[in-house]
Structure formats: C-alpha cells, structure tokens
C-alpha cells in the first residue's frame, strides 16, 4: 500500500511539475481495484481533510524525529499526509526567497539555521498541501516550522531541546512536538503523546500510541487485570487477581511505586475506575449477594460506599462521565448484562442503552468518552462481540466493527479514536480505529493482548522521578 501511495504521489508530483494545472487537493486515496501500472486512485474531494506535507531533508541527525512526527500526524487521521518522492531529486524549496509570514502567524525568531528558506507555496498548494512542516536543527535545538501553504507563510515555529535518540524521554518529547504542530495547524490537541496500558499473560504493559516503546509496568508476579488511568496521567489503578480474590492497587507511572487500595482484597474486587478529579475510585465487588458497585475515597483511603444493591442482579464495570456527575455501568437487571447509568451518588439508576428483550445481546465494558458525548462498549452480536458507541444524549447506538471478534474499547483523549481488542487478523491483538474516517490500524502485533486503557494526554514528567 505504501508503495502504491508513493507511486501515486510521484505521479501527482510529476503531473504538478509538468503542467500548470489549477490547484487541487489531494485527498483520500482509492482502495478500489488497481489493475496495473499507475492507477491514479485519487478522489478529488476538496475540503475533506487538509493536506499535509513533511519537507524532505537529509541528515542533521533528525531523520528519526521526522519519521516519528510524520507518523504521529498520519495517525492523528486529521490530515491527508502527502508523501513526496525522493527528496532532493525534485527541488521544492526556493532558496533565498524572502520569507513571507502568514497574516496573524508567529514570526519566527531570527537566527534559525534554515529560516531564510521560503517554500514554493503555489507548488505545494498544487499538490494539495495546506500545511508543510520543516524539521531542522539549530545547534542543539530542534526547530520545527509549520508553514501555512494556503496563506503562504509560516504559521508557527516550535523550538525544542530533544533528548538524544535512544534516551528514555526521546520519543515522548518528539510526540509532544507533533502535538504542538497539530495544535498550531488545526487548533485542536493531538494524541501523539499518549500511551496505552494493556494486559498480556497476566501482566500490565504500556505502549506508545504509535506502537513503539513496549514496556512491562507490572511489579508483581500475580495476575493483573483491568488497568485504568487516573485523569492526570501520573498513575493508574488495576486489579491483582489471586486465588479467586481481587485486590486493587494504585501505581505511580514515574516511580512504579504501588499502594494497595484500602478495604479491597478480602473479596473479589475488580474493574476500578477513577473519578475525573482522581479523588474517588469506583469498583465492583463480588460477594455472596452478587456483584455490586462501591466507591472509596482515595485521598483519605477510607469511606467505602455502596452505590448499587443488586440482590438478584450483578452490577459492575463503572465508568465516570468526564464531569464526574454520572456513572455508567453494566447491570444484569434485564436478565443479561446491559448498559445502565446513575448519578455519581448511586441515585437515579436507569437503563442507558436501549434494550429489546430477545434481540439485544449482552453488552459490557463501557467507557465514557473524554468529551462526555459517547460511551463505547461491546455487545454480543450473533455469538461474537462487536464494538458499539452509545450517544449519551440521544441514547442511540451504532455498531463500529463487524469483522471478527472485537471487544474492550478504550477512548483516546481526542474522543475520536478507540483502541480495542480484535481477532480479525487471526489472533487477539490491539487495534485502533478512527471513528471519523473509519481507518483501522493494528497497534501491536502480538497475540494475547487484552483489556487496553488509553491514557489521557501525558504530562511532561512521565518518566522522571519527582
């Protein structure tokens, strides 16, 4: 596929260079039948997604930085990323041309090594680019220049002192630069500097959203389940499973220090969920009466409260709305697990996702989106699981997946990407779907990964000791 894209882009560039055609946008490439030779599978759909090009440069030790940023912006699914063919073979930049700052754009500080180079904006515009990003070095500072192609000037210059490649913080630092570039281009925050926790072989791992830096974070040999992030991204909670009982733990991301949650561990306590302010932990407790949802005050490690009294039903898998006012959860009140919602104090418990007896399959694993508008979950459809999204306001559901078994969705902080577990490739592994474009990519090529939890946007000090 990448090869085809390259060919397509090459052809497009060649066409653009050879003929003065009117500006057009290069948007989604076609995935329909490609017979032979250069099938120009370009659909001209102006205005779908802004075109984006990363300027090809060689050397300067920044190849890996460029590669990471390019991939981050691609994985944001907010741009049509234009891949230029073979760098120097086509001279795209016009050296010596005066720099024209865009109206309202930040004027780059003087002294940058390559600031004197303006772009051949009309050419990039002809290629469909709305934005062009240039990554250069000025001493030990990495200078990232975002050009607004339509306006014909520099939108913003980002300067960052990046750790050396291979250092622990390197990739996260680059991801943050990518997020800044996305913010500068579109005015929305990116998801490059995020991670995903998941469980494999009973241990908790973390992985960057781009699939790099897989790392074990479990600090015990007991089986772990259900990792979940605190809203500040500095710690997570999970359940440790032993001999049919479950104890909840909090663990600091930076230090790995873990603390048992008070009152848990004597029964089977599971599916922890932080309140948005991080002061309350909700969880499920299985006892002789069944399974019910409880909360505990994390600040004072006290004050166990019971939110549901199931009697003949099970209530589990709590997830807070981002305003902290409501909790969605699973209840077996209708006879099989379905989505319910209640106020955070346990009052006003009611059915959340519509349920037709005998039609609607078991529904589980809800997670409220960070923007509050949706709840992702999975539902049994014809004997297998599929990922669904519930609109919290209209209470309508839509099915997102249909290939294979798909389960345990978790929201990215942009509320448009979901990570989930799927066996569509033949074994269960983690995938990411973009709800806006429908694009699906594998996050991890390893079997047995499950129960993913996507982090919030991570603070800068994630890997340094406080």
């Amino acid at each position, binding site marked *: 596929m990448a090869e085809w894209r390259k060919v397509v882009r090459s052809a497009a560039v060649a066409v653009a260079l050879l003929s003065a055609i009117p500006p057009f946008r290069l948007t989604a490439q076609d995935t329909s039948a490609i017979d032979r030779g250069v099938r120009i599978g370009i659909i001209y759909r102006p205005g779908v997604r802004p075109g984006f090009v990363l300027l090809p440069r060689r050397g300067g030790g920044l190849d890996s930085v460029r590669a990471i940023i390019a991939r981050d912006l691609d994985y944001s699914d907010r741009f049509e990323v234009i891949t230029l063919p073979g760098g120097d073979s086509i001279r795209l930049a016009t050296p010596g041309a005066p720099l024209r700052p865009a109206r309202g754009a930040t004027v780059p500080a003087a002294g940058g090594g390559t600031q004197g180079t303006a772009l051949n904006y009309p050419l990039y515009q002809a290629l469909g680019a709305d934005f062009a990003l240039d990554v250069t070095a000025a001493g030990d500072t990495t200078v990232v220049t975002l050009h607004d192609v339509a306006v014909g000037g520099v939108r913003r210059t980002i300067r960052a002192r990046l750790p050396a490649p291979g250092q622990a913080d390197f990739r996260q630092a680059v991801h943050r630069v990518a997020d800044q570039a996305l913010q500068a281009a579109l005015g929305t925050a990116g998801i490059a500097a995020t991670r995903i926790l998941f469980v494999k072989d009973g241990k908790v791992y973390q992985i960057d959203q781009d699939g790099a830096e897989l790392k074990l974070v479990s600090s015990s040999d007991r089986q772990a389940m259900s990792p979940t992030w605190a809203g500040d991204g500095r710690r997570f909670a999970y359940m440790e499973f032993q001999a049919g009982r479950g104890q909840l733990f909090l663990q600091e991301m930076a230090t790995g220090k873990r603390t048992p949650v008070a009152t848990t561990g004597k029964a089977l306590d599971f599916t922890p969920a932080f309140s948005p302010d991080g002061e309350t932990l909700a969880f499920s407790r299985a006892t002789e009466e069944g399974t019910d949802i409880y909360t505990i005050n994390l600040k004072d490690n006290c004050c166990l409260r019971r939110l549901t009294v199931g009697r003949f039903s099970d209530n589990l898998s709590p997830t807070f709305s981002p305003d902290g006012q409501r909790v969605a959860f*699973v209840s077996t009140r209708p006879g099989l697990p379905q989505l319910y919602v209640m106020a955070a104090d346990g009052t006003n418990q009611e059915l959340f996702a519509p349920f037709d007896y005998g039609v609607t399959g078991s529904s589980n694993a809800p997670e409220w989106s960070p923007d509050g508008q949706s709840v992702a979950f999975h539902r049994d459809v014809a004997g297998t699981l599929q990922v669904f999204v519930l609109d919290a306001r209209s209470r309508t559901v839509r099915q997102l997946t249909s290939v294979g078994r798909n389960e345990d969705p978790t929201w990215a902080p942009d509320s448009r990407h979901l990570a989930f577990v799927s066996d569509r490739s033949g074994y269960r592994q983690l995938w990411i779907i973009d709800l806006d474009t429908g694009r699906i990519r594998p996050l991890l090529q390893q079997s047995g990964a499950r129960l993913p939890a996507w982090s919030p946007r991570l603070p800068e000090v994630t890997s340094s000791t406080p």
Partner: protein
Amino acid sequence: MKPVSLLFVIGLGAAVFAGACGGKKPVEQLAPQPNADSAAAAQAEAERLAREEEARRAREEADRQARAREADSLAALGRTTEAVRTMLAAMIHFDYDKANIRSNDAGTLDEKVAILQANPNLRIRIHGHCDERGSDEYNLALGNRRAQSGKQYLVSHGIDAGRIETQSWGEERPLVDGHDESAWSQNRRDEFEIIGGGDALVRP
C-alpha cells in the same frame, strides 16, 4: 511332691520286706523302672508345657491376625476417603452465560450434600469458572454467580453456610484449551475443593 515321695517310701519298704521273707527265692534284682506315678507326673508336665506353647502360639496368631485386620481396615478407610474425595470433587457444569444449576447436576450435588452431612468436620470451597466467549471482566461476576449457585444448593439442602467458601476465577483458568463448544462446555463449571476436615472421610 509329697504324695509321690510317700508312695516311693512305701514301695521301698515293701521291697525290703519281700527280700527279708523270701530268702530262697532268687532275688530278682529289678532294673529300676520309672514309677508309674512319676511317669504320669512327667507327662503332665509335658502336656502343661505344650498347652502353654499352644496358647502362646494362639496368642501370637491372634495378634498377627489382629494386626492384619487393623492394616486392612486402615487401607479400607483410606480407600473410602479417596472415594469420597473423588465423589466430592465431581464438577458441575453450566449453560452459556447462565448460573442456574442444571437438572442433571442435581444428583452430583445431592451426593455432596450427603457427604457433607456424613462428615460434619468437612469444609469446602467452590470455584466458579467461565468459558472464554463472554466478556473478560463480566465473567468474574458470572463465575461468582456460579459458585454462589452451587453453595446455595448445598445450603438449601441443610448444609451450614459457614462450611462453604466461594471464589470466582472468571475465564482465567480454563480446564480445557480450545475454542469450540466442546472446550467451552467443559470450562463452564464449578470445582469443589476440600479446605478442612478431609483427612478421614466416611461414606454417606
């Protein structure tokens, strides 16, 4: 001994008298013969010893047999305990996403009721398990339901609830690896573990 020696003295006196009176008669010098009475006495002694020997042998034989019987009964007891344990460990199974006791498992549970009644010190733990098809986390609740169903059945048949613990394993400990109904149906189960008073069990 006294009567024997008296008889001996009288006998001796008679011999002297005969010798004194029948002088012409050749003195038949009789070889000393065991006196009948003394022979009887010796035989009695021998018989006594024999009886004692026989009694001793009988006692030893009885001891041996007793020891053998004891060993046999210990083995039997062990065999019984093992048999009862096996009966107690018999699993029960569940329908998909269900925790109610199947009618064909009632007999298995009734057997456990009888065993628990016959062995009042016996304490058990019921482990609820699920197959891999359901949701990972929901299965923890479902496994708990299944363990509780097993317990409720035993309690409703007269077993003290304090003698039965329960645990849920969700789908985390499959009995059979495999991704078909044959494996799933075996994995949807309650297991029964002895946690106390199981050293010497009697049959119900």
